[in-house]
């Protein structure tokens, strides 16, 4: 500044005008005061005036000088005012003519522009220098060349650059479009600046225009800043609003996605497949190039741009990111071997992933830097917000893409995620956002950038992070960073991590049902969740989401009880890992428990599972849950054995109150106890003991063994659960069998039951009251057996006074050996009734032809049972039907082959069987009909049919069938029909 410039009074009218004009930019037609000038001897009047070029049609580059006398120069040393004025106006004219922009768009790059544009003539240079060195005190477009230039730039930008940056509604390659636009804008900006620097403000570093241009950021010239600000605001204003945001969002999403390693077009996954990565790497590079092929031209302009602009942001960052080893070097400080190894591995991986990622990252930074320079990135809030949205979306996408369904254990997901957030995402955000912040504050505009380049800041933050990790809290102030900055960055990073964990948690909560089903392969998923459920809200979210998933996916009629139980067992295990207190388990299992209680076969399935070792071989099906037997074997977790008294244990130093979110009926359980959870489904223990007894009796009676160690073990284990008294029945059952073995041997010896030619007989003597109810319907056993039984009875009654034996003829097994003419048929485990039936055929010579009713009469056996027995022997090719329901023995197999009416026989059998079932059904229906009509009065057929829905097992008859049935009842006099209704006949 020319300090010797003295103040002078401004005429009143002028002062007002200036105030006015400071608000409203003067138009071309306005009259202007004479510029104030300091005397200067340096301005040499050019010997010859350049020919007057026709002024462009625009604006106010010509100056109007209304009156020379208006403002007489106050300085005495000056040449005559007229001379100054003439000189000035000539200079003005020369300068503005030279500096105004032609009415066409700019070439592709600054370099091109620099090459093509003509250097100013000496006159012009002098004129400009004259004008710039003689600053008027009050700058208006008419007095200050800078102000004029600003206006000129604005005009040119709006008229010629703006139309070129419109965004079409549809575009294919967003990135290239954005880059093209940014390229145009940057070129325009740099040209504007170039001219500003070169000609208008070159004062201090005269002759070093180029250099000056390069380091504009270091310039403390407030004028340049003002110019840039004004230019940027115009640029920012001229961008089409929603379209621009959308474009930037999309491009950033794509590029940042690639940069942070999202599996997109290039699927470079994490650590595992190092071998493959090599190929992948090269693949993706080429792919990358393909993608950006179309952009290369505009990229070129970028490159030139960076060249010109030197080391502002882009290059610096490029280096910083390009060599992660640079930064890792800081770590080597610590000299932890292991860490070093890890680092080495990381480095290796990084290098492998580096290329496509780095490319994208560099591009992002390029774009961001360009945007920032143009004031549309960080400078405007818009850019930052869009970027934040991008990061937000990326976080979710990354988590979903990388961690969905990844449940391996021990879970590395949390660490991976932290690492990713800290090193990849965080780094990207730091790189991008850091530079922008500084640009925001007007005073620290360049200062902060200068204070801390992104690389340094990154280094500093990394260092402080590392320090923190090592436990050392001191902050490296040598990097020149305020503690505040680091803190904020650390806080940011921490909050990002929290957000990331939250997102991961949400993902896992959504997957929780699958996690439970896949248990225990999905342990890792649960581990991830543990870091999520740390607040009541997240816990609530988990339970509600999971409960609704349960009810939609599991708790419906289509799911088998065993599947539900299996899921419940997994659920117990998974949630015990997830939340050892059991509060969450308590909450989510309520629904499933309620549902299980409603299922009728729950008890059966569970007991079969628990006693699966005792089930006869070959009867296992998908319904069974053999794992329950193992669970039972594990016993009861120690803490539970104290029972409900735990709360009263005053010596329990580790006692803690129930968690705050525990429900009212919450019962703490410290250990995993699957069986315990299942048997607490019902308060009553009877339910269980009954079923256990049923299974046990089946097992004890179903085999001819005498030793039942497994069963004894199971029962003992169950005693732990249910208590001695509850399991007493089962105890007695086991004891009965053991006793039977002894008494059997004893009685047989006493009564000399081992007789040649007679079958052997062994008994199991059961204490009737303690066994499940058995079918007592007996039949006439063959005489030989009857004799043996009677002798056995005697033996028993002498052994145990006052006790009586009741034979359960239908129970038990018989080893049958049939000697036929051509073969011997052996059946080691026929039932007693099967044996009795076949015995009839062989008993008497007089007849070996029997019909089923005759057999039934003879044996005093139920017809259905006889029928089953006959069928059994038919299937063994021992019996055959010879017509009219008469059966006989097949003595020679050739007979069977000769005439094989077996087929018809079998079908006839089946029909018979059906009618047998039907008979039972008919009896029930009849009872219901009678009951209904007795109490409800006369009813039409439809109503009867409807009311019969109450019949257990459902009522499947059609109306015709029912009508027929009622007619039959009518013929038997049980009902009568009158006036469309059926009723009971009056007595």
């Amino acid at each position, binding site marked *: 500044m020319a300090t010797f410039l003295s103040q002078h009074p401004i005429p009143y009218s002028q002062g007002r005008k200036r105030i006015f004009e400071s608000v409203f930019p003067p138009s071309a037609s306005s009259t202007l005061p004479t510029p104030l000038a300091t005397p200067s001897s340096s301005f040499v009047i050019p010997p010859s005036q350049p020919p007057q070029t026709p002024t462009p049609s625009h604006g106010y580059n010509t100056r109007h000088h209304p009156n020379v006398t208006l403002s007489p120069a106050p300085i005495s040393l000056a040449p005559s005012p007229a001379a100054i004025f003439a000189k000035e106006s000539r200079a003005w004219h020369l300068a503005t003519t030279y500096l105004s922009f032609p009415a066409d768009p700019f070439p592709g790059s600054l370099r091109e522009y620099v090459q093509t544009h003509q250097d100013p003539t000496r006159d012009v240079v002098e004129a400009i220098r004259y004008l710039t060195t003689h600053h008027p005190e009050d700058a208006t477009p008419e007095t200050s060349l800078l102000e004029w230039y600003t206006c000129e730039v604005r005009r040119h930008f709006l008229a010629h650059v703006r139309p070129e940056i419109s965004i079409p509604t549809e575009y294919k390659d967003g990135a290239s479009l954005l880059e093209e636009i940014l390229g145009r804008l940057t070129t325009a900006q740099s040209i504007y600046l170039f001219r500003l620097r070169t000609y208008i403000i070159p004062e201090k570093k005269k002759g070093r225009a180029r250099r000056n241009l390069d380091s504009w950021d270091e310039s403390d010239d407030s004028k340049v800043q003002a110019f840039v600000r004004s230019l940027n605001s115009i640029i920012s204003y001229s961008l089409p609003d929603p379209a621009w945001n959308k474009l930037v969002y999309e491009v950033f999403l794509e590029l940042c996605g690639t940069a942070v390693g999202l599996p997109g077009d290039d699927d470079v996954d994490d650590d595992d497949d190092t071998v493959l990565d090599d190929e992948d790497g090269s693949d993706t590079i080429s792919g990358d190039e393909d993608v950006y092929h179309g952009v290369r031209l505009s990229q070129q302009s970028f490159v030139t741009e960076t060249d010109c602009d030197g080391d502002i942001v882009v290059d610096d960052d490029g280096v910083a990111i390009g060599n992660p080893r640079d930064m890792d070097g800081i770590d080597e400080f610590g000299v932890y071997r292991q860490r070093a190894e890890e680092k080495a591995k990381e480095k290796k991986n990084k290098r492998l992933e580096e290329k496509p990622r780095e490319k994208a990252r560099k591009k992002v930074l390029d774009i961001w830097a360009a945007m920032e320079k143009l004031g549309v990135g960080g400078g405007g809030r818009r850019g930052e917000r869009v970027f934040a949205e991008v990061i937000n979306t990326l976080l979710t996408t990354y988590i979903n893409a990388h961690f969905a369904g990844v449940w391996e254990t021990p879970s590395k997901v949390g660490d991976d995620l932290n690492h990713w957030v800290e090193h990849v995402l965080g780094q990207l955000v730091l790189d991008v956002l850091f530079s922008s912040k500084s640009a925001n504050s007007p005073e620290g505009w360049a200062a902060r950038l200068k204070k801390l380049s992104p690389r340094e800041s990154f280094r500093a933050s990394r260092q402080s992070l590392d320090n923190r990790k090592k436990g050392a809290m001191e902050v490296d102030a040598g990097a020149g960073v305020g503690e505040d900055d680091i803190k904020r960055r650390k806080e940011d990073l921490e909050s990002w991590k929290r957000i990331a964990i939250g997102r991961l948690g949400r993902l896992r909560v959504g997957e929780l049902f699958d996690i439970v089903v896949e248990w225990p392969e999905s342990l890792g998923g649960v581990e991830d969740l543990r870091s999520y459920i740390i607040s009541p809200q997240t816990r609530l979210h988990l339970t509600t989401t999971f409960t609704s998933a349960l009810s939609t996916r599991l708790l419906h009629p289509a799911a088998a009880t065993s599947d539900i139980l299996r899921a419940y067992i997994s659920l117990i295990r998974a949630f015990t890992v997830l939340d050892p207190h059991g509060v969450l388990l308590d909450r989510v299992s309520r629904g499933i428990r309620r549902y299980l209680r409603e299922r009728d076969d729950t008890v059966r399935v569970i007991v079969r599972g628990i006693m699966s070792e005792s089930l006869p071989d070959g009867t296992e099906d998908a319904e069974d849950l053999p794992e329950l037997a193992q669970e039972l074997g594990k016993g009861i977790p120690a803490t539970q054995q104290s029972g409900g008294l735990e709360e009263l244990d005053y010596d329990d130093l580790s006692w803690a109150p129930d968690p705050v979110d525990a429900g009212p009926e919450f019962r703490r359980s410290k250990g995993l106890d699957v069986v315990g959870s299942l048997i607490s489904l*019902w308060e009553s223990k009877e339910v269980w003991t009954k079923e256990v007894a049923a299974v046990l009796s089946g097992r004890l009676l179903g085999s001819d063994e005498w030793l039942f160690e497994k069963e004894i073990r199971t029962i003992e284990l169950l005693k732990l659960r249910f208590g001695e008294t509850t399991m007493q029945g089962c105890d007695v059952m086991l004891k009965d069998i053991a006793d039977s073995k002894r008494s059997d041997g004893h009685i047989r010896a006493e009564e000399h039951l081992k007789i040649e030619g007679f079958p052997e007989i062994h008994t199991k003597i059961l204490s009737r009251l303690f066994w499940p109810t058995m079918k007592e319907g007996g039949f006439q056993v063959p005489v030989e057996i009857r004799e043996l039984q009677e002798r056995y009875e005697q033996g028993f009654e002498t052994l145990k006074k006052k006790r009586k034996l009741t034979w359960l003829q239908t129970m038990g097994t018989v080893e049958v050996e049939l000697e036929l003419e051509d073969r011997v048929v052996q059946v080691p485990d026929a039932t007693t009734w099967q044996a009795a039936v076949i015995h009839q055929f062989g008993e008497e010579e007089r007849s070996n032809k029997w019909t089923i009713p005759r057999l039934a009469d003879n044996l005093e056996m139920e017809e259905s049972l006889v029928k089953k027995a006959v069928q059994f022997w038919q299937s063994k090719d021992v019996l055959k039907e010879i017509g009219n329901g008469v059966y006989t023995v097949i003595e020679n197999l050739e007979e069977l082959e000769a005439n094989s009416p077996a087929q018809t026989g079998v079908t006839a059998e089946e029909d018979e069987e059906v009618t047998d079932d039907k008979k039972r059904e008919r009896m029930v229906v009849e009872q219901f009909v009678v009951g209904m009509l007795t109490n409800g009065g006369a009813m039409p057929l439809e109503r009867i049919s409807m009311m019969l829905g*109450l019949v257990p097992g459902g009522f499947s008859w059609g109306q015709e069938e029912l009508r027929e049935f009622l007619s039959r009842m009518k013929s038997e006099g049980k009902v009568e029909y009158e006036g469309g209704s059926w009723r009971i006949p009056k007595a």
Partner: protein
Amino acid sequence: MDQSTESANASSGPGKSTTTLNGGQSVSKRLQTELMQLMMSTTPGISAFPTDGNLQHWTGTINGPEGTPYESLTFKLTLEFPSNYPMAPPTVLFTTPMFHPNVDMSGRICLDILKDKWSAVYNVQSILLSLQSLLGEPNNKSPLNGQAAELWDKDPKEYKRLLMLRHKEAED
């Protein structure tokens, strides 16, 4: 309908003891079981069946026991089961006009097991049997119908006449 029949089916199986559990389901389950028992046992002279398929509302029929004034007469009743049945007794009313010392003119019955002596082991069958025997052996110490109580011992003929008069109302 499907659901209830299904549970009735199972109640004869392993899940039978679940009927003693509390809960909305258990009432209908219990009544299903009782219905099935009642239908299958066919005790002569008594019968009951849900009205209109509503399990908590039954209609019952009792034949007057032989050797009593009620011989060869049929009486209808309604049984309303509370939702906490069998913890509380059902409400039983004669719908057929009744002439009996322990039944009032609107059919209400004074019987201890339907009041304070109720126990969950009683069921429809035992209620109906009790009522049937009540017809033959009224408790004249606490009559609801004083006239009937008086006539029961003093004038069986008049008793029978009034009974038939009353019963006739039903026929008309």
